[in-house]
């Protein structure tokens, strides 16, 4: 993980908090015949909130480690996977 890397949210992906769940809705069609929506689990939702074009990945990792009282290594791995998934669905750049 590049600790100094900074990501920002894609403006074409809308964040909604509905009935306690954080979901991402792209405003563009995600496939030929329908539009997917993406549901984030608790950790992913917390990380998503911290991706703001200012926080480095290192800072995000540290904040999550503090918030979830989990090992730095474990959080870093999960964060890495999440970033890859978010890039795949074009939610961040």
């Amino acid at each position, binding site marked *: 993980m590049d600790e100094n890397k900074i990501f920002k949210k894609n403006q074409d992906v809308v964040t909604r908090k509905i009935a306690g769940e954080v979901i991402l809705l792209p405003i563009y069609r995600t496939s030929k015949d329908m539009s997917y929506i993406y549901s984030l689990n608790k950790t992913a939702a917390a990380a998503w909130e911290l991706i703001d074009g200012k926080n480095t990945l290192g800072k995000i990792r540290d904040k999550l480690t503090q918030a979830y009282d989990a090992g730095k290594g474990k959080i870093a791995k999960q964060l890495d*996977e999440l970033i890859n998934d978010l890039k795949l669905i074009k939610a961040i750049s």
Partner: protein
Amino acid sequence: MAIKTIGSKKSNKFFKAMLARSREQKNPLNVTFEITRRCNFYCPYCYRVGGFRPRQELNIKEITAILRQMADAGVLCVAFTGGEPFAREDIFDILECANRCGFKFNLMTNGYFIDENAADRLKDVNINKVDISFNFLSPAAFDKFSGVKGSFVKVKNAIEILSKKNIPVALKATGMTLNKNELVALSRYARNLRVPFYLDAEVSVCHSGCGDFSRKHSLDNAEVSFLMKAVYPEMFRPGAAVMRIKSRARSGRMFSCAAGRDMFSVNPYGEMNFCVQIDYPRYNILAEGGIKSCWERIKNEINRLNTTKDYICVNCDIIKYCTHCCPGRAFAETGSFNSCSEYLRNMALERKREKEIPRDQ
């Protein structure tokens, strides 16, 4: 997995779970937004023909404000309807705003104005589904009913354009004496196109009248039974899941539907109602505290009605033959929720004569 992708296969389970949570938290999830009462058709079962008086409708700024408040309140699904939504010149501005607010939204339309260009624009705004009213397969009957010459060809083209462009479309028909001989053929047309077909077997009495049309052209119980079996044969095969409908008396609540639980409607004047069929209680969203405040009042009003003493259905002698769980019909006919709908009573009496106990018993 930190991120779950919700596509068509998983979406039913996802939305069901979301609905259950919304109901638990008493938050609105679904809204029907009637954005205009103007229309280019003159269908005789509609309020436009039944003595409708036009009023000043919401402008785009007001609609945008309401949509943003809805998003803030946790609404996810919006159905835009009318009148005819395309009668508004700013329809695409409205849909674009809905898209940017993060709604999953459908459009209910007569389809007349949907050509290649409009279909492309609907795709651009990420429309979830287009529902088209399609009551006749015979061009002459269709044009006569709509009151617009050439409307059948335009609407049929719209259906085919939307299908070709992979925009989900569904056809909706109202069962009446005027089209009862075409409904099975209509359902087959939809199946051949691989689009859903929804048959509403009841000619509703809308909020400004048209009770006469309903009285003259509603199907009787035998006709409804026959048509349902012919249009949806898979629902009546042995072993098919039975749709359970709670009768009002057994549920103990006047309102056992989604109104005030996870759903409300908005009319073209910015008034919040129980649902689009009932123009009540008409809380003015922008003038009376906003969506959240009006939603609290809607819930309180539903709760108040649900504790009505001497609730008419409880001691009804033919309740076991009555399938309907919506007091909106009675309200539209008589102006009172705690009354009996003449139409529903007649249908129940027919079932009693035929000794046909509804499938939910």
